[in-house]
C-alpha cells in the first residue's frame, strides 16, 4: 500500500534490536514512515531552495532533520555518492557498501590540496542591453532564437521592416585553414600521388567544408587562368571541381557562377597544355561532362544556366576563325548536354561545317600533320555527336531497342576488352567508307581511325599518356555520371554485332513499320549518311540498316 513495504520495517526493526515485530505493527508503521519521509523531504527541499541550489544534498536533509528536532544522521558526507549493493539472495534488499579503511592509510596519506579561496570577479554581462563578446559571457549562439524573434518584434513595433545586413565577418578555424592549404598544395604539386586521390575523396564526402567553398572557387578560377599550359594541373583542378560538386553537404549553387567560367575554359580554350605532348582532348571531354552534369543538377535552379552555356559553346562552334581545338571542345560540350541540344544546335550547321572541315581533313590540302589530326578529331566528335543524336531518335521508338541498356552495361567491361580487335576493325570500316583516308595516318595516330568510337580512343591514349590514375578512375566515373552516354558509346563498339544478331529477327518487322512512320528519323539518317558516309552506321544495327536501305 505504501511505498515503504512492511518488510523494510521489519528489517529496520531487526537492525535496531527488535527481533519479533508483529506484522500488524509493521503494516501500521509503514504508512507513517512514508509520511514522515515525505515530510522531511519537503523540509529538505525548502532548505535546498534557500541555499539557492537546484540539487538536493545530504546537507539539506540534515538541516531538515534539524528543523524537525530529529537528531541528524552522521556519516554521510556530501563528497561522494553512496554506493548501494544488492544483498545476496534477496531481490530488493540493498545495503550501503561501507568499505573498511585502514587507519594507517588515512594517517599516512598526504594532506589534500587546500581548496581555492572564494573570490569575486566582475565583468559586463551587458552594456546598454547588448552582451559584449568576452570570454566571461556565454556564447551568444546558445540562444539565437530569442534574439531573432526579438528583432522581428522590434521591426513590427517600429514599423520599420528594413533588413539591415551587417557585413559578415566569418572566421575560419585553424583546422579548416590547414585543410585548405594542404588540399591546394596537393592539387598543384602532387596530382598523381595517392594523397590526391584521398583528398578528392575527402572533398567529395566531408561535411564541414562549406566555409571553404568560396576559397576553393577562387583558388580554382585563379589557378585555371594561371596554368593553362599545365595540363595535369588543369586536370586535377577539374577533379577538385568534380569532388566539390559531388559533396552532398556543400551548398554550391551560389558559387556556380564562379566555377562555370573555369570549366568552360577547360572545354573550349584554344590551347590547353602542351599541344604536342599532352592529351588535352581528354580534359575537354572530362570538363564537358562536368558542365553537363552541373546543368542537369542545377538547371532548374538557374533557368538561364544552360542557355548561357549553349550560347557560349555555339559561338565557339560556328565561328570559323576559332581553332579546331575550340571547335572540338564546343562540340563535345554540346554533345554532353544531350541529343536534343545536338539536334537543335549542331545538326542544322552540320553540312556547312563539314564543308569547312573537309579541306582540313585531306592530306593534299592540309599539309600540317597536327592540324590534320585535329581536324580528324573534330570530325570524329561531330560524327559521334550526330550518331548519338540519331541513336536517340531511334530509341524513341518503343520496342525498337528494348533492352539495350542492360546488355550494354553488362558488356561494359567487354567493350574495353574488345578494344584491340575493335581498333583493328574500325580502321577497316573507316577506310571503306572514307576512301580518302590515308592508311599512313592511321598508323601514325594509332587511333584516329576509331574516331567513330571516340570513347575508346581517349582511354587508349590515356593509358599511353601514363596518367595511370585517370585510367582507373574513368570507367567507373562514366558509368555513374552518364549512363545514357555509356550505352551510346559502347554501341558502336563491341555490342553492335551481338545486339544485331540477337534481336534482329524479332525487331525486324516492327522496325520497318516504325521507321516508315517516322520520316524525321529517316531523313536524319539519310542526311547523316550523306555527310558521314557509312561511318554513321556504326551507331545503329545492321539489320535495321538493311531495312532502311
Amino acid at each position, binding site marked *: 500500500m505504501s511505498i515503504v513495504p512492511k518488510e523494510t520495517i521489519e528489517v529496520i526493526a531487526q537492525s535496531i534490536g527488535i527481533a519479533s515485530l508483529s506484522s500488524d505493527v509493521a503494516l501500521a508503521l509503514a504508512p507513517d514512515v512514508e509520511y514522515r519521509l515525505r515530510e522531511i523531504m519537503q523540509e529538505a527541499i525548502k532548505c535546498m531552495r*534557500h541555499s539557492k541550489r537546484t540539487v538536493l544534498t545530504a546537507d539539506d536533509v540534515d538541516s531538515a532533520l534539524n528543523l524537525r528536532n530529529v537528531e541528524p544522521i552522521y556519516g554521510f558526507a556530501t563528497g561522494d555518492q553512496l554506493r548501494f549493493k544488492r544483498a545476496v539472495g534477496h531481490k530488493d534488499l540493498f545495503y550501503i557498501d561501507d568499505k573498511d579503511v585502514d587507519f594507517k592509510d588515512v594517517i599516512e596519506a598526504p594532506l589534500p590540496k587546500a581548496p581555492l579561496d*572564494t573570490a569575486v570577479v566582475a565583468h559586463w554581462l*551587458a552594456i546598454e542591453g547588448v*552582451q559584449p563578446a568576452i570570454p566571461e559571457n556565454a556564447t551568444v549562439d546558445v540562444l539565437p532564437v530569442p534574439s531573432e524573434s526579438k528583432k522581428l518584434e522590434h521591426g513590427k513595433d517600429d514599423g520599420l521592416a528594413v533588413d539591415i545586413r551587417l557585413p559578415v565577418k566569418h572566421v575560419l578555424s585553424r583546422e579548416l585553414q590547414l585543410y585548405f592549404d594542404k588540399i591546394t598544395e596537393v592539387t598543384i604539386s602532387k596530382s598523381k600521388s595517392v594523397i590526391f586521390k584521398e583528398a578528392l575523396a575527402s572533398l567529395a564526402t566531408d561535411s564541414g567544408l562549406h566555409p571553404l567553398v568560396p576559397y576553393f572557387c577562387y583558388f580554382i578560377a585563379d589557378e585555371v587562368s594561371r596554368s593553362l599550359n599545365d595540363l595535369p594541373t588543369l586536370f586535377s583542378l577539374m577533379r577538385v571541381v568534380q569532388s566539390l560538386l559531388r559533396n552532398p553537404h556543400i551548398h554550391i549553387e551560389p558559387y556556380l557562377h564562379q566555377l562555370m567560367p573555369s570549366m568552360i575554359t577547360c572545354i573550349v580554350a584554344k590551347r590547353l597544355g602542351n599541344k604536342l605532348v599532352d592529351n588535352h582532348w581528354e580534359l575537354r571531354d572530362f570538363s564537358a561532362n562536368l558542365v553537363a552534369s552541373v546543368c542537369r543538377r542545377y538547371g532548374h535552379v538557374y533557368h538561364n544556366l544552360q542557355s548561357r552555356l549553349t550560347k557560349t559553346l555555339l559561338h565557339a562552334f560556328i565561328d570559323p576563325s576559332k581553332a579546331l581545338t575550340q571547335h572540338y571542345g564546343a562540340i563535345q560540350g554540346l554533345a554532353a548536354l544531350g541529343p536534343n541540344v545536338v539536334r537543335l544546335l549542331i545538326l542544322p550547321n552540320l553540312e556547312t561545317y563539314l564543308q569547312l572541315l573537309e579541306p582540313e581533313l585531306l592530306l593534299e590540302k592540309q599539309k600540317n600533320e597536327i592540324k590534320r589530326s585535329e581536324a580528324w578529331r573534330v570530325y570524329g566528335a561531330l560524327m559521334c555527336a550526330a550518331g548519338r543524336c540519331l541513336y536517340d531518335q531511334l530509341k524513341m521508338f518503343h520496342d525498337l531497342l528494348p533492352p539495350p541498356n542492360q546488355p550494354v552495361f553488362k558488356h561494359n567491361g567487354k567493350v574495353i576488352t574488345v578494344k584491340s580487335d575493335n581498333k583493328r576493325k574500325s580502321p577497316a570500316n573507316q577506310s571503306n567508307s572514307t576512301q580518302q583516308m590515308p592508311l599512313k595516318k592511321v598508323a601514325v595516330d594509332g587511333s584516329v581511325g576509331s574516331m567513330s568510337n571516340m570513347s575508346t580512343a581517349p582511354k587508349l591514349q590515356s593509358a599511353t599518356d601514363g596518367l595511370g590514375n585517370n585510367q582507373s578512375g574513368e570507367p567507373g566515373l562514366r558509368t555513374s555520371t552518364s549512363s545514357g552516354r555509356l550505352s551510346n558509346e559502347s554501341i558502336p563498339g563491341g555490342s553492335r554485332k551481338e545486339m544485331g544478331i540477337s534481336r534482329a529477327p524479332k525487331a525486324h518487322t516492327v522496325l520497318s513499320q516504325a521507321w516508315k512512320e517516322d520520316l524525321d528519323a529517316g531523313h536524319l539518317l539519310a542526311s547523316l549518311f550523306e555527310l558521314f558516309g557509312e561511318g554513321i552506321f556504326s551507331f545503329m544495327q545492321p539489320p535495321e540498316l538493311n531495312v532502311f536501305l
Partner: protein
Amino acid sequence: MEDEEIEKTVFAYLKKKGFWQTERTLQNEQSRASSASQSEGGISRPEKGPQQHHDGYSKLRSWAYGSLDLYKHELLRVLYPVFIHCFMDLVAEGYMQEARTFFQTFREDHEMLHLRDLQKLEGILCPSHLEEMELARSLRQSKVVIKLCEYSCNLLLQYLQKTQSFSMLGVINEHINFEVSSGQPVSISDDSDVVALVGNNQDMAKQINQKEVRWGLLEDSIEERLEKTLSDSEKVEGENKEIDLDDIKKRSADGGRQGSSSKKLKKDKVVGTVGKCARSETSIISLAPRVKAELALPTMPTEVEQSILEDLRNRVQLSSLALPSVSFYTFINTHNGLNCASISHDGSLVAGGFSDSSLKIWNMSKLGQPAKAGSMQGENEYPHNETFIGHDEGKRSYTLFQGHSGPVYSSSFSPTGDFLLSSSSDSTIRLWSTKLNSNLVCYKGHNYPVWDVQFGPFGHYFVSASHDRTARIWSMDRIQPLRIMAGHLSDVDCVQWHANCNYIATGSSDKTVRLWDVQSGESVRIFIGHRSMVMSLAMSPDGRYMASGDEDGMIMMWDLSTGRCVSPLIGHNSCVWTLAFSCEGTLLASGSADCTVKLWDVTSSNKASKMDENKGSSGSKLRLLKALPTKSTPVYTLRFSRRNLLFAAGALSKSC
C-alpha cells in the same frame, strides 16, 4: 437512555405481573427490530464504501469531459475539489488501499495545475495524517468557492440527481460553494481562482482584499525634492555640469576606483548625460499620490542626501528601447557553499552568505588592489571576539564576518551601505558594521531558521521572514521585534518593503503573497495565484505594483490596490531567485537558476492593464525585452543602482 429505562420498567412490570407471554413477544419484537436496523446498516455500509466514490467520480469525470464545450472548463473545475475530497474521505474512513488506487487512477488529470499539492497529498496514508498536515486540514475545514454560470450549475445538479450519485452530491455539498453568476460562462484564462482554491478560506481572503491600501509614495520624498530642485536649476544647467566634472575628479582622487568600478563610473556619467536630456518627460513617480509615513523615519545626514541627489541627477532613463548595462559579479570557488549574495546600493560592496556560517564582504572598488593591510589593521583594534578580519593572513581579498552558528540564508545592506544584516539558520539576525568590520547586534526572536531579512528603504527598520511562519519588523536599536506578522500557513520565504515604508509584502511556501500594514500588523492583501513556493518579491518604485517570482520560474505582476494579477511573466524555467525594478519602474529584471537575467517591459503591462479595465478582456502578456544568458552562473541577486546600472551576482557552478 430514556427508552431503555422505559423498556426496563415495562419488563419489570410484566415480570412482576407474570405476563411472561407478553414479555417474550416483546423481546422477540425488539430483537427483530435491532437485527433489522443492523441489516439496514449492512446494506447502507457498502454503498458508502470506496467503490462508490471511485465509480461516482469516474462517472462524473467522464460526464464533465463529455459536456458541452462552452461549459466544459467550468465543469472541469469542479472535478479537482471533488477529487481531493473523495480521496480524503476515503482516507478518513480508513480505506487506505482504495484511496491509493483511487488517487493513482485520476491523478494525471490534475497534475498540470496542482502538481505540488498532489505530491503533498499523496503522502496522506492514515486518518491521523489528515489532522496533522496543514494543507489537508485547511482543505477539510474550508469550503472551496467555484464560480459557475447558471447553466453549468443546472447541468451539474441535473446530472447528479439523474444518476442518483449521492456520494458525489454529498462531497460537493460538503466542500464546495458555488458562486452562480447569470449569463455566459467566464473565460478560461480567468482561472486564477481555480488554481488557488487550495488551503485558503477564500471568503477571508476576499474580505481582507477589500481593505484600503494607500500605495502612494511618501510626501516630501527625495525624488520629489529633486524634481523641484531640477525645475529650479534648469537654468543653471551649465553649472551643474561643472560640478559633475569636479565630482569625478574628486572621486577618482580619493576613491581610487579601479577596474570595473571606474569603468562603471564612466559609464554612469556617459549615459547620465543622456538621461538628463530625456528628463524632460516627467517620470511616473511624480504621478503617484502622496501619503504620510506611519513610522517615524530616521533623518538622513545631509551628505548622504547630497550623494543621493547627485545619483538621481545622473540617472539613466531606461525604457524598452534603452536597456541597462549589467555588471555581473561572479563568485568563484564557492564549493557549492554560497547561499545568498547581496549588493549595496552603489554596487561597491558585495556580501556573500555561506553555508559554513560565514559572511564575506568584498569591496569591489578596491578589487585588484593589493590589500592595504596597515590601515585595516588599525581598524582591527576594535575588540570583538566574534569578528575576524581577514587581513591577518594579509592576502585575503575579502572581509570575513564570523558569528553565526548555521548557514547564512540572507543578507541585506542598509541604504547607505554602513550596515549589513544577515539571517541564519541559527534563528538569529545579526547586524554588522561595514565601517568597523564588526558585529554590532544579535537579534533573537525567531524560533526557527530565518530565511530572509531586508532593510527598509530608509534604513533603521528591517523585516525578517522565518520558517516559524511569521515575519517580524525590527528596528536597529531594539533587540525585540516591533511587530510580528502571523497568518501564513507555511514558511515565510521572502519579504520586501513597500516603497512608502507603510507596508511589507511576504511570500510564502503556502503559495500566496501577503501584504501587511506595518502600523497595525494586519494582513491587508492576499495575492493568490502562484502554483509553487514564492521565492522572490519586488516592489515597483511608484508603489503601485509588485512582482513575485516562484519556484517554477513564473513571475506575476500584482496590482496592490485591486489585489489582482496584472499579468504572468512566463519565460524562466527554473526558480526565480531575484527580482528588481529599475528606478523609474519601467523595467523589471529577473534572475533565475536557469542562468539567465531577463529584462521585462513593465510599462506595456501597465498600459495593457489600463486598457484591460476598459475592455475587460484577458490580460496581455508582458513583453520579454532581453534574455542575457550567463556562463553557467545562476543569478542570486540583482540590484539597480540609483543611477540605474544593474548589478547582478551569482556563483559559478560547474554542474549547471
